[in-house]
């Protein structure tokens, strides 16, 4: 399938981060159109019509979120861009942050117009210091040219943006934990409701949108919601940035229509590395249940993946070939979740430590078949028992590998003790 050039159309241009490059390539046209020709309700309506669903992972309808936010008249109101992409396997927002920062700023300014917001924050992960600087420079440029700041383009809209760096905590990608972190606390999730649109940053109405979602907005405003809804799977449409890594020839970010089959994404990424056979994929990062070879023709979109018991998440596709050890893979992901659990909810905090220990025992050759039932039992108790979705999703890697690759677990259980695994690592 040929790649799209919508969200990535400026990424390859020389000096793509500069406002002059942006302006010469349709930049800030959508904001101008929104401010001069449209009402906030019309902008929200186009976004609703586009059927855009949040690209950060949860897939909530962006237009609906904006509608909720517009109904709350408490002021001040905030737009927070979630640029904390921390889901293992995800590096797609980086393309926008690094090469097309003004697209994000324009999307945020349009969002501010649509919901009547007063200030914006970009919460960017601590591991991206270079991108944070690019964003700060872009904000300055946009302010100097009147695309951010007081009375933007002579309108009533006054809005600017503060770039805020995280410091390495996976859970801060969850919107309520992100808000806690933005307020200068440990990034731990809050119980919802209330949702951030009613009580977010400083307990004020706050729209939290992902980088890619916001970067879709200028295109929707310029070309119309119907145009966007005509790309890819009609039920959950649009262009999508996929991060593909692991056993493919050309790992990277590819822009393809929603619903592209996994097989075609792999082909776009140069095919399987060294001609090896495909064994499995985690289509939505570490949090998603794995797909096996029988599912390689499934479309990569919210609905098609949900239908086979996994999820699109942020579109972080990790590919494993025939040589991959699925037990080891599940262990590596469990170790990650155990390390990153924020510790607020007992099932996630304690449960993941147990899951990791049992998994390590299996890898060391000390496992029994009963351990597999024990693992599934602990996983069941973690799921649905945490404040945030991250806790729920943390054990998908374990349950799905036991379900689909039980034989590999049994190989460890029935064979001589092995030496590898947990030795020498920190907790």
């Amino acid at each position: 399938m040929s790649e799209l050039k919508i969200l990535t159309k400026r990424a390859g241009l020389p000096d793509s981060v500069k406002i002059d490059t942006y302006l010469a390539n349709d930049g800030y046209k959508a904001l101008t159109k929104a401010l001069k020709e449209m009402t906030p309700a019309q902008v929200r309506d186009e976004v609703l019509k586009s059927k855009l669903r949040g690209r950060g992972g949860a897939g909530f309808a962006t237009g609906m979120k904006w509608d909720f936010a517009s109904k709350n008249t408490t002021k001040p109101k905030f737009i927070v861009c979630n640029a904390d992409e921390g889901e293992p396997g995800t590096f797609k927002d980086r393309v926008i942050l690094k090469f097309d920062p003004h697209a994000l700023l324009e999307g945020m300014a349009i969002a501010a117009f649509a919901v009547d917001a007063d200030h914006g924050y970009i919460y960017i992960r601590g591991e991206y210091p270079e991108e944070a600087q690019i964003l700060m420079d872009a904000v300055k440029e946009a302010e100097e040219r009147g695309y951010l700041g007081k009375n933007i383009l002579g309108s009533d809209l006054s809005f600017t943006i503060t770039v805020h760096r995280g410091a390495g905590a996976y859970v801060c990608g969850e919107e309520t934990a992100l808000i806690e972190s933005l307020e200068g606390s440990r990034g731990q999730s809050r119980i919802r409701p209330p949702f951030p649109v009613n009580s977010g940053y400083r307990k004020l109405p706050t729209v939290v949108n992902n980088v890619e979602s916001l970067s879709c907005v200028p295109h929707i405003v310029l070309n119309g919601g119907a145009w966007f809804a005509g790309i890819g799977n009609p039920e959950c449409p649009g262009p999508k940035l996929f991060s593909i890594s692991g056993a493919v020839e050309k790992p990277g970010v590819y822009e393809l229509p929603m619903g592209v089959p996994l097989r075609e994404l792999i082909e776009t990424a140069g095919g399987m590395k060294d001609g090896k056979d495909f064994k499995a994929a985690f289509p939505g990062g570490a949090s998603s249940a794995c797909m096996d070879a029988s599912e390689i023709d499934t479309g990569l979109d919210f609905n098609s993946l949900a239908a086979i018991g996994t999820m699109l998440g942020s579109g972080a596709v990790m590919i494993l070939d025939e040589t991959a050890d699925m037990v080891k893979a599940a262990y590596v992901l469990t170790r990650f979740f155990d390390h990153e659990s924020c510790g607020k909810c007992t099932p996630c905090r304690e449960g993941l430590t147990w899951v990791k220990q049992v998994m390590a025992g299996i890898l060391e050759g000390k496992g029994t078949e009963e351990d597999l039932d024990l693992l599934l039992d602990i996983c069941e108790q973690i799921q649905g028992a945490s404040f945030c979705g991250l806790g729920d999703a943390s054990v998908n890697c374990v349950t799905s590998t036991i379900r689909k690759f039980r034989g590999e677990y049994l190989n460890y259980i029935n064979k001589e003790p092995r030496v590898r695994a947990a030795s020498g690592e920190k907790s």
Partner: protein
Amino acid sequence: MSVQELFSDAELKSIQEIASRYEEPGSALMPLLHYVQQIRGYLGEDEMAFIADFLGITRVRAYEVATYYTLYYTKPRGRHTIQVCRNLSCTLAGAEGIVDFLKKELEIEVGGTTADGMFSLVEVECIGSCDKAPAIMIDGDHHGPVTPESLREILNTYRGKP
């Protein structure tokens, strides 16, 4: 310790500028911790206490935030910090071998600092460079895919950096 002993006038000015970006004093905490770490290399107790007092928040809050996030260091470390990603895409591409190589080459364990104070070595989770697996970060720079040979060269370039 008095303020004058902790920070120069120019540094104090930067601290005030960063704090002025936020209406909510607590929101300036993380940027200020980043700033102090950038100029001092790590977050000392006196510096954290000063920042907390300056913002009008409890000292324990500054400390709990500093110890919660992976990228804040509350102990002195080497001039350059090497972060090796150990998540799935990097593990599939041989991240364990990279850690083993660095441990041997630098003669330190994970979490340790070389005798000359040049490098600290830590393992981290996904750094968003999965397309360049196995990937590492040194200070703020991403490198990948790395091999033992390329690492030797990379380390040498940092040996010459401040």
